[in-house]
């Protein structure tokens, strides 16, 4: 049976253009901050799970080979996971599984990207599209998400206003997050509405910035946790699913893959009513409209109710189910680290270490990431109390 596992250390770099740091140096920063946070040193690590997204962002194939020693994997077990935007979470999940398996006691998961090494991250993203049947139309990620947003709004009678509401909420939340890139004090709906329309129905306000960043999480087995920290974030469960890309009757506004992941995660953790039981949620909102869709997939509301949930104010910091106190991916997107930031932020919440963005009394949290052609969904549930 699976061992109990907890997060014992978290390290984050700021999300911005790290114009003065090489890729390995940025990775080292993330790893050393996590080690410092946990009080561990590299010798304590049993293995490393290295996440990094499309090579086309930096033009380095298999960057884990170059950067392994920069994250403490000197003559140690290391392997690389790559699942697109969800890679940060997949890497964390990988580390969690390696510890839960019983074979490794302390495993470091690290993930990141330096999107500013290329003049256009969108060219790299356009290579996600199948070369034979889709690349000719590709306009990077915005084109795919715009399709998703449009579908969602028109199906449920919502409008781009709802996306803008998410944007304003998250931009203001980001002001509390020292690691976020986009900080827009005094941001309002009117300001958001006045930004240029880039890829209908998405405006600039609805989009994430391009960041360089690394996030790092250290997972430890039950019997080691106590000797490392008296404030761990216990992992209740982790799930990663694939929905499929080109399946017949795919409704881009209805993420059945996310719902599958959520069902499994809640069932395994014994959660019957996520809206009531969860204290805080961090979702991967690369584009504002997505957050509304993820509310539904995660059962924070029913199908079709995402826009209404936003309108109700329930997901604001003052609401009963705050979503993205960190400002979300909308405020910082390095792609490689973005999903791990969601998990790390969720873990920080139950550990009571989220500083200015702390949700009072949070004991149960969820972190989410998506990747690929919006078909990979990853979740991790954290608890203050040992399961």
């Amino acid at each position: 049976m699976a061992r109990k596992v907890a997060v014992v250390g978290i390290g984050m770099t700021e999300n911005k253009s790290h114009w003065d740091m090489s890729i390995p140096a940025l990775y080292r920063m993330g790893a050393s901050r996590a080690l410092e946070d946990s009080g561990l040193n590299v010798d304590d690590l049993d293995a490393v799970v290295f996440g990094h997204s499309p090579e086309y962002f930096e033009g380095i194939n298999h960057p884990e080979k170059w950067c392994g020693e920069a994250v403490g994997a000197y003559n140690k077990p290391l392997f690389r996971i790559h699942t697109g935007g969800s890679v940060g979470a997949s890497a964390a999940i990988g580390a969690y599984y390696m510890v839960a398996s019983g074979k490794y006691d302390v495993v470091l998961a690290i993930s990141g990207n330096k999107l500013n090494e290329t003049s256009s991250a969108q060219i790299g993203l356009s290579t996600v599209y199948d070369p034979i049947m889709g690349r000719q139309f590709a306009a990077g990620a915005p084109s795919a998400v715009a399709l998703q947003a449009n579908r969602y709004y028109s199906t449920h009678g919502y409008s781009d206003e709802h996306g803008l509401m998410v944007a304003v909420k998250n931009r203001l939340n980001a002001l509390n997050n020292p690691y976020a890139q986009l900080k827009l004090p005094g941001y309002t709906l009117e300001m958001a509405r006045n930004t240029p329309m880039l890829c209908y129905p998405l405006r600039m306000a609805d989009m994430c910035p391009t960041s360089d960043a690394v996030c790092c999480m250290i997972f430890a087995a039950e019997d080691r946790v106590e000797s490392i920290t008296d404030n761990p974030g216990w992992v209740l469960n982790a799930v990663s699913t694939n929905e499929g890309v080109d399946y017949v009757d795919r409704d881009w506004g209805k993420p059945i893959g996310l719902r599958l992941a959520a069902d499994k995660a809640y069932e395994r953790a014994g959660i019957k009513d996520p809206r009531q039981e969860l204290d805080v949620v961090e979702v991967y909102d690369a584009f504002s409209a997505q957050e509304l869709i993820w509310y539904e997939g995660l059962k924070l509301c029913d199908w079709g109710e995402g826009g209404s949930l936003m309108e109700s104010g329930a997901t604001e910091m003052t609401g009963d189910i705050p979503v993205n106190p960190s400002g979300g991916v909308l405020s910082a997107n390095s792609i490689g680290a973005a999903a791990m930031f969601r998990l790390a932020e969720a873990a920080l919440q139950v550990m009571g270490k989220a500083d200015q963005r702390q949700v009072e009394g949070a004991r149960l949290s969820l972190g989410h990431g998506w990747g690929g052609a919006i078909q990979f969904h990853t979740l991790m549930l954290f608890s203050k109390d040992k399961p």
Partner: protein
Amino acid sequence: MSRIGIAGWNQSSFQERMEDVNRNELIFTTVYELLEKTGVDIEDIDSIVSASCDTVDGISISSAYADDAMGAFMKEESKVEEDGAYALMYAYHRLLMGQWRNCLIVAHGKSSDAGPAFYANMMCDPFLLRPLGLETISSAALQAAAYYHRYGVSEEDAARVVVKNRAAGKRNPHTQVRSEVSLEEVLRSPYLASPIKQLEVPPVSDGAVAVLLATEDYARQVTDSPVWVDGVGFCQDVYYPGHKELSHSVSCQKAARDAYRQVGIGDPLKELDLAEVSEGFSFQELLLYENLGFCDQGKGARLIQDGTTDFEGAFPVNPSGGTLCANATMVAGLARIIECCRQLTRSAGENQVQKDLNRALAHASSGLFLQSNLVTILSI
């Protein structure tokens, strides 16, 4: 804790260039055939871990579309950007958690789609290595030169590996290069990057393989002879070639030691019955003998001189022909595991090793200069 075993496998053919199927067709066929062979329905697959590389495929997030082709619709899944053997390692640890009954592992690589030289050169850091034009052959050559110099290994010793593996490949219907070659022919072949000669280099291969890994209960429902994964060790050492001693591989030593420790093996040559290693280049097989602990450092050549590692020898190594006969990027290491399964279940047909077989070692490698190594111990 349940034992974890391989309940089925399938290999596509390995070819220098598959122009009649695209990547997804290749993957679909490989997986479909595995399901047919094992009688397992895709609905019954609990989880999937795939292995592929974006730069080989020319598609970012290479699993995004490939997943459709491997039946990963509405399934728990993940992907490693490593050889399939690493995907199996990850799947193995996932199954140990007890949350799933099985995991389908799919590895693919159409190495001919992108030039292998570019693939390797792109692994080089842009400041110190890339401008020199370093890639797989030149990096292997640097390592070979260091190895020969340190231990007095001759080019002839290395060439013997090619002769041995090519002879074995001729018997193996699943491999790509199926013709023998003589020692003279190898030694006479032109230098590509000294001391590596043309006939000492692995072929470029397109291919895909799929493996069904499962907990004991499930595996026994599917097959009478599951092949057990007894232990896995893996390790990565330093990156820059000048920062380490090239005549041996620390990561290979550690990976092997870790695997042996998990299984309780003290003397691999005695306690294992055969090995399938990802030798890449001729000389590397000798280096691997030493770093996998089959013999002392510098003594690898002896094992081939005295016939120990021959097909009919006391400890056959690469009875499949190894990667010198088929080398699909991201696939070769998992293909070694499959070849061990064929041997252990005595279903290897024309390339079946005759002696008693209970336990085998499969080795996979990744990166230049044998930077990362993974050792899997299998038993029947």
